[in-house]
């Protein structure tokens, strides 16, 4: 922010001023672009259906979002420990979650779980999302079910 005193005394010409503003602009925009690009490379999370997880051989520890239906008869609760199976009809992935599941977490309903695969192939969820609507199935889950041919749209949209 400091500048040679000779310039300050004379004041900056219109050209110099514009140049300073443009230089400042360029610096901030460059900083922001770099940040955004770095963050997009490192901080985004991919959405996978159980079939995707198997097909892409997702490595253990990589944060992903796993979406599908909670398989009927798979939900077991012991205190705050929950285990359930996420399915898209073609493939199943066992998942585990500690804590309070959302109100609308039900067997046969759509679910999106955030977390990563453990070394034994079990999905360790850190967060489970289910929308606050009894007919809701997350859009990503609908797409995944359609892709595996398991989509039966009788339960509303």
């Amino acid at each position, binding site marked *: 922010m400091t500048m040679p005193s000779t310039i300050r005394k004379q004041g900056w010409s219109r050209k110099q*001023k514009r140049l300073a503003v443009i230089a400042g602009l360029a610096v901030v925009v460059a900083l*922001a672009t770099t940040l955004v690009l770095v963050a997009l490379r490192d901080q*985004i*999370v991919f959405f996978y259906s159980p079939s995707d997880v198997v097909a892409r051989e997702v490595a253990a520890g990589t944060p992903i979002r796993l979406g599908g239906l909670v398989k009927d008869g798979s939900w077991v609760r012991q205190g*705050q420990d929950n285990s359930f199976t996420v399915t898209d009809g073609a493939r199943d992935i066992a998942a585990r979650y500690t804590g*309070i599941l959302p109100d609308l977490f039900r067997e046969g309903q759509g679910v999106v779980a955030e977390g990563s695969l453990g070394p034994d192939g079990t999905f360790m969820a850190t967060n489970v999302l289910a929308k*606050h609507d009894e007919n809701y199935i*997350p859009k*990503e889950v609908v797409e995944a079910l359609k892709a595996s041919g398991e989509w039966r749209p009788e339960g509303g949209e």
Partner: protein
Amino acid sequence: MSIELGHFALILAFAIATVSAVGGFAFWRSGQRIALVLSQGAVLQFILIAVAFAALIQAFVTSDFSLLLAANNSHSLKPLIFKISGVWGNHEGSMVLWIFILVAFGAMVATFGRKLPHDLLALVLATQSLLTSAFAGFTIFTSNPFARLIPAPIEGNDLNPVLQDIGLAIHPPLLYAGYVGFSICFSFAIAALVSGRIDQAWARWVRPWTMLSWTFLTLGIAMGSYWAYYELGWGGWWFWDPVENASFMPWLAGTALLHSALVMEKRNALKIWTVFLSIITFSLSLLGTFLVRSGILTSVHTFASDPTRGLVILTLLALVIGGAFALFAFRAASLRQGGLFAPVSREGALILNNLFLATAVGAVLVGTLYPLLLDALAGTTISVGAPFFNLTFGTLMAPLLLVLPFGPLLAWKRADIVSAAQRLIGAAALAIFVTILISALSGIAVSLAPLGLLLGFWVAFGAIAELVDRSKLGRIPLAESGRRLIGLPRSAWSTAIAHFGIGITVLGIVATSAWETERVTTLNPGESTELSGYTIAFDRFDTVEGPNYLSDEGHFTVTAPDGGTRQMLADRRTYVASGMPTTEAAIETYGFSQLYLQLGEPLDNTHVVRVWHKPYITLIWLGAILMACAGFLSLTDRKLRVGAPRRAAKSAAQAAE
């Protein structure tokens, strides 16, 4: 009968708005007469939409289920306040609320703007009418709120239980008042571009409208955040959800606009940029209201997504936003620039502020829209969550907060940075001291928390330093200082309070993120658990009947570290009409901190209980409330009430003739 009356009023308002828009743009040069006609048209639109809105409210209040909207979203057992708020708890009704606020702002301009140059007033009102016409047309043709249902059902389907909360009664109207208020800035920008004339008087007119909208939006976002915090029961106060981002982007742009309009008003500089920002801010508001409903963004907030409606919305958005930018591209060069200044000056500081805020808007926009683009282009589904935004937005805000306290201490045109720094040395020393003290006491080793605390304290103390400096506190007798302090212009006070509020919010965010503690455990009645010095005892478990729900209630007794005890009640409700369950978390406030307790579904008589201790979390919202207070205070400033704009407007009008 009243339903048809409301429907007719809406259609009539649409017709008047369309005629006003066409006539206004065709004859804006014809002086007083057209301005008068458009003013009356604006007031008429307001009255008609008020009638339509009242008709809807009446149908909901009287549980008239022959109205399809009421049958789908209301229930006769619902408490009155939720019957009313249920009107805008759905797509169609919220459109009517949106239009109602739009025409209310239009009528306000028509009423308070009689002193505006006639051509400017005509163009502003014509643009407002164009917006009303577009969105009233959209409502009538694709989302008619007045559709009947015959035969009428005996009982309604009830409103989504999550929305049955006082939050819904307050949050959307505030948020919409903020969004829609920016339409005035937009209309002024369009008027400036069409007429090719823009001066300081223009900025003096635009700034109070920006301030008003910004204040509403600040309150709306803060309210929404608190609502999500206590109602969704996840304990989080901000999720970087697309809808939150959509409301946050116009806030950031509006904040930038507030500051650039200041430069324009005082120094007649940054004209083109201010016009550009006005358009951007309202465009982002439109994006915020409508992108969510087009169904292309999925979010916890989305209601009613219908593909055909989505297409119409996108077309409408493209026309309004695209049209405005096309006009800007053709006409911006005709606006003349003025006002020279050195880089180190108040103007320079405000440009820096705009630069960072605008870039932050860009970063948030990329994060919000990138998943959509990637999905459309590559077919890959990704989610861009909190880590992305914390990294990009956080990094961009840090330098802005660092230089913020300097701004108000710099003189216009050319300033002395050294002297400003000298006046801030006390604030800096105090901020560093307090941060070191807190870090030492709480024992955080290496993390970003002390840095965040330092920034927060620096901004807060820096805001006070400005007041201290201007009142010459400590340099002249105390009584004299007090008199000076009281005599300071309200704008100086509101600047200081708003900046102080930002510091407070930052402190709240940092403290909660750094020191939050959490415990998930299984408790049976009679057992207790402990968290951060608080003992939480589970007393008993009951099932109670509410007005339109059944409730499983958990009663808890909390013993605070100081020995005081308080009762907490967390419940899980099942709504009769929809069968939907909701969780109502129990929240107890201790000073600025809160204890947050959530009850899980019972299994074989055991209960999972999740408890959070959230230190200083209320500072986040208190800071926002301070900012809003500053906004209202600034609106009462003397210069907005008397003289200046009137004279300037008159001379501008004479120059035009």
